[in-house]
């Protein structure tokens, strides 16, 4: 994958966001007035972002138009990206499931899926790790940290 295209895309996005910060007054609500003002620092940062986005975006755009050969850092290796997508999907599903089925049920499933995703094929050990770790984390955090991870609820 050509990183220059991504460079151009994300720097343009950042420039647009910064322009909104510079021009809009609706981003701040309520509060009291102080000497500095709530938008002073954000606007300075926005100016810097525009400056450096241009410094990154323009050379990338120029090279993209000239079709110059890709340097070592400019080629993004996309092998294995599908796995990353699956991993993020597992995380989101896990996050959504915890409040309903509880930590102790959601976690072994998530851990086991990630282990399978990582090409683990040693089923009994993987199953044992996936069940014992959540138990240890759950009871460890409730007894030592006094953090009570979500349990399943009927509601």
């Amino acid at each position, binding site marked *: 994958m050509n990183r220059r295209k991504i460079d151009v895309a994300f720097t343009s996005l950042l420039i647009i966001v910064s322009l909104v910060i510079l021009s809009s007054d609706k981003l701040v*609500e*309520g*509060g*009291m*007035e*102080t000497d500095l003002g709530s938008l002073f620092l954000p606007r300075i940062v926005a100016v810097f972002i525009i400056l450096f986005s241009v410094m990154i975006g323009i050379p990338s755009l120029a090279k993209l138009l000239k079709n110059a050969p890709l340097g070592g850092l400019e080629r993004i290796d996309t092998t294995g990206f599908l796995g990353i997508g699956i991993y993020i999907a597992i995380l989101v599903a896990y996050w959504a499931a915890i409040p309903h089925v509880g930590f102790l049920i959601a976690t072994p499933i998530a851990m086991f899926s990630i282990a399978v995703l990582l090409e683990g094929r040693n089923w009994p050990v993987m199953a044992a790790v996936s069940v014992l770790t959540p138990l240890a984390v759950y009871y460890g955090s409730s007894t030592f940290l*006094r953090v*009570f991870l979500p349990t399943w*609820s*009927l509601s």
Partner: protein
Amino acid sequence: MKKFAQSLLGITAAIAVTLTAGPALAEYPEKPINVIVPWGAGGDSDLTTRLWADAMEGILGGPVVVINKAGGGGVIGTTFVANSAKDGYTLINAGLSNVLVTPNFSKTPYDFGSFEPVVKLSSVPLGILVPADSPYKTFDDLIAAAKAGKVTQGSWGAASSGTVLANIIADQAGYTVKFVHGNTTAESMVALIGGHIDSAVSFPPAFGPHVKSGRARLLVLNQKMDEYPNVPTFADYGIKGSFEGWSGVFAPKGTPADVIQKLVTASTQAMEDPKVRQAFANMGANVDFRHGDAWVKDMLETYDIMKDAAAKMKQ
């Protein structure tokens, strides 16, 4: 048959209770009680709440867990409790700033009415201080200087309880100051004893050590304190009102009355423990244990004062 039906009903109810661990019944508390402190760990309201929670745990026989949910000037943690289950298992460490001041100054998703006051634990009187080498020997000196020119005053946040109280005082005495906003009471004391600001408003847990060591001079205080017998009060200067920070415990509105009653009873016992009282005193906080209608009425009065002050300051 009727008896059988009754006992069946009883058993089902019992099972339902044990399964869902839901609404508080006679058994309260049957799971950990969470007390949210809307500030970072280590502040004075955090410490008073931790002491209280530790004592409550022994009395109630179940865990009372203190959780710091800091951020957004106390609004985040307070909002969280306002929106949580009304079963008495989620309580908030309330104080002047998060339930009486902030709702009037910022856009908050909760108000004073979103809570059921449980108990007030302690209070700390507001004081005004100057550095030890300051030319202002009395509060009158400071007033005169502030009327004549620029005097800076340390506080903690433009919409914080400190600034609001200081503004009400300044308004009544007829002077104006330039506020320098630290993050905490401790931070503004640093700027004060470093000589970077002319005066500061603060509470005893933060200024006590500095007054004791002679690096800061306490000019005026909300009420007479045994530790500072010679310091005049605001009333001596004809300033009306009560200027104190306090720390207490609130529950979300709609929490069953018997749960609140149980918490009040347990707190009464906890706050009578001499060890707890000594620990509060060591920190510089007065044990000011209150509950019930008279207390709520006082708070509502303060709420109205804050509302007026907010309207004035926002102009």
